């Protein structure tokens, strides 16, 4: 396998472990997203992969070769930095071919490659511009071209979209993904934006406090979160504390029907979670626990409506897509919410509140 493998990698700063117990495989040609909140260690992990930080322990292997001790300038993984880190004293083209120039490539060949890359990122003709003249989106393209110039085996991106404005971000996510697929290059993207991860990645690695919480394709991560943290971090979820009882979960005075409760011993404390688009409001003949509810707030943002409810088990949010229902909901309206038992998730409760 020509991919990247991390075995038991950890990084300690003094007595603090920034990253711990990392065992990951990055298959060749795949785009993996390292996703998590700030401070979860994802950037530290990326920098270790790049060779900019030295792991305190563990091994990094590329196609079976141990590269743990190899310094960054010998690994030559192309990297795009959060601030793009373009050299202000060089032109666009000089930035792009930097790696070629310092490795001794002939000027003609370097220029050729430079032009090809600028073409690839749709910046044809920008070669002689100065960095200061470029917009944010253009700078990102230059950074991408520059990282790819050395034909790296691994392509690393550290929060590549954070310096762009919202509209541009979404367009670039798609563009970057298409580019990556075209080149077939093993890519790792660090991001805190779950939408970005779900848009671009073949595989998502969810991280929290230096540890890997879950690894899997985006749809698995979304529909089958393995713990409360992942459930809360990806998408939105409603959470309730309860105790397993008679094959269901008792939340307060209510016993909820729950398929997942079967996995737990009776009496275990659990957290019940479900996505807002799963419950039904005012529905007849739909299986599942039916709760009385009163509408407290309606948020209509256009394509979706969020209906905030106060129910007998507590407050919750139910989401409807436009066209999914014609019913209108007004504040103060009495209604009933049905929770499908196969859509409810249950996680062990450790005594701490969820995320």
């Amino acid at each position, binding site marked *: 396998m020509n991919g990247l493998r991390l075995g038991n990698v950890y990084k300690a700063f003094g007595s*603090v472990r*920034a990253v711990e117990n990392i065992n990951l495989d990055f298959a060749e040609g795949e785009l993996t997203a390292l996703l998590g909140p700030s401070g979860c260690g994802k950037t530290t992990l990326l920098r270790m992969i790049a060779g900019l930080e030295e792991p305190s322990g563990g091994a990094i292997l590329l196609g079976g070769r141990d590269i743990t001790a190899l*310094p960054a*300038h010998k690994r030559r993984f192309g990297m795009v930095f959060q601030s793009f880190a373009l050299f202000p004293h060089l032109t666009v083209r000089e930035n792009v071919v930097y790696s070629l120039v310092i490795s001794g490539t002939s000027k003609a060949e370097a220029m050729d490659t430079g032009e090809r890359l600028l073409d690839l990122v749709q910046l044809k003709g920008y070669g002689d511009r100065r960095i200061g003249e470029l917009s944010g989106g253009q700078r990102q393209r230059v950074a991408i071209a520059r990282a790819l110039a050395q034909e790296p085996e691994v392509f690393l991106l550290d929060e590549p979209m954070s310096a762009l404005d919202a509209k541009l971000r979404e367009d670039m996510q798609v563009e970057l993904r298409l580019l990556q697929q075209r080149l077939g290059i093993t890519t790792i993207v660090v991001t805190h934006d779950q939408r970005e991860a779900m848009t671009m990645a073949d595989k998502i690695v969810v991280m929290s406090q230096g540890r890997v919480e879950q690894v899997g394709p985006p749809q698995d991560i979304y529909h089958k979160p393995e713990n409360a943290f992942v459930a809360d971090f990806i998408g939105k979820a409603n959470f309730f504390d309860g105790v397993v009882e008679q094959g269901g979960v008792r939340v307060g005075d209510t016993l909820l029907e729950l398929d997942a409760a079967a996995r737990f011993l009776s009496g275990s404390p659990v957290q019940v979670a479900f996505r807002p688009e799963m419950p039904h409001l005012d529905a007849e003949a739909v299986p599942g626990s039916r709760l009385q509810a009163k509408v407290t707030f309606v948020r209509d943002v256009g394509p979706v409506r969020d209906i905030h409810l106060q129910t007998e088990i507590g407050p919750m949010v139910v989401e409807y897509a436009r066209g999914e229902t014609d019913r209108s909901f007004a504040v103060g309206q009495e209604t009933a919410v049905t929770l499908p038992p196969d859509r409810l998730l249950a996680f062990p409760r450790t005594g701490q509140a969820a995320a």
Partner: protein
Amino acid sequence: MSAVSEPEGIAAPVPAAAEGNTPSRWPLAQVGLWAVILFLCLTPFILIFAISFGHKIEGASWEWAFSLANYQRVFVGANWPEEVTALYLQKLYYSLYYAVIASVLAVITAFPFTYLVTGRSRRAQSAWLVFILSSLSLSEVFIVMGWDVLLSNRSGLPMVFKATGLTDWLKQVGWFDTLRDWGLANPRNVKFKTSVSATVLTMSYLVWPYAVILLYPPLSRLDRSMVEAARTMGAGPWTVLRTVILPTVRLPLMGSVLLLFVFLLGVYVAVTVFAEPAKQTMAVSVYEAVRGNTLNAPFGAAQAMVLLVTAGIFLALGQWMSRRAAS
């Protein structure tokens, strides 16, 4: 061999793992650098220290020794314990006296100037800085020359005073006698040269641009919106100065005074030209001892050490003050 990152690994200035090139070459360059610095910057001071214990022999020469005679002479006079002469202590006193007045004066006048300049546009600041830096580069010798001409009895300010009738007016009003008391006048006319005032003024003028340069960073980083906020709360300009600006820059102000004070301890040319012979400084007697008329190198070295230690004490004081404020 790879440099281990500090706890703030991500903030390490140079990529810790980028140690690809010859680490063996570095120690040699390091040693060389240390050697150069120690040689050029430290040994001169060590030499002064060592020589200060020597004593003079016939003629202009001297020899190594371990005697404290020079220091004794500086502090209590050569004829101790029969009599105590404070001649050199007096010179030290004047060194301190002139220096402290001049440095305080310079900072007090440079402060409003710098404050105003840092309030101007970036381009204006650039222009002012060019002006200040150019004037700063005017050697002490020139400044003294300039002020000497300006204050000279025959063709400078005193002449202007006489020509415009100011002298007569002063005599009439009775202020002339006060000036005589201050050493600023002869029976016939005002006299500015060789007076304490002229010395202090020239010394102050000498370090004024340095004061501006020292005050420039803290004053340019002063948040003007604080001043505006105070004004919206009813503070007049004087109150703003007293309650907002001064407390914020108190430390840089004192630090500047200290640094300039230390610098002025060593001033030579201005003192020789403008100060009366009886009120000269230790710097002058160092000069005299080492290259001037008295030619007693070890004694000069001893005085230089005294100056050095005095300067060192005040510098250390400054460091201590700033460390206290930072905590």
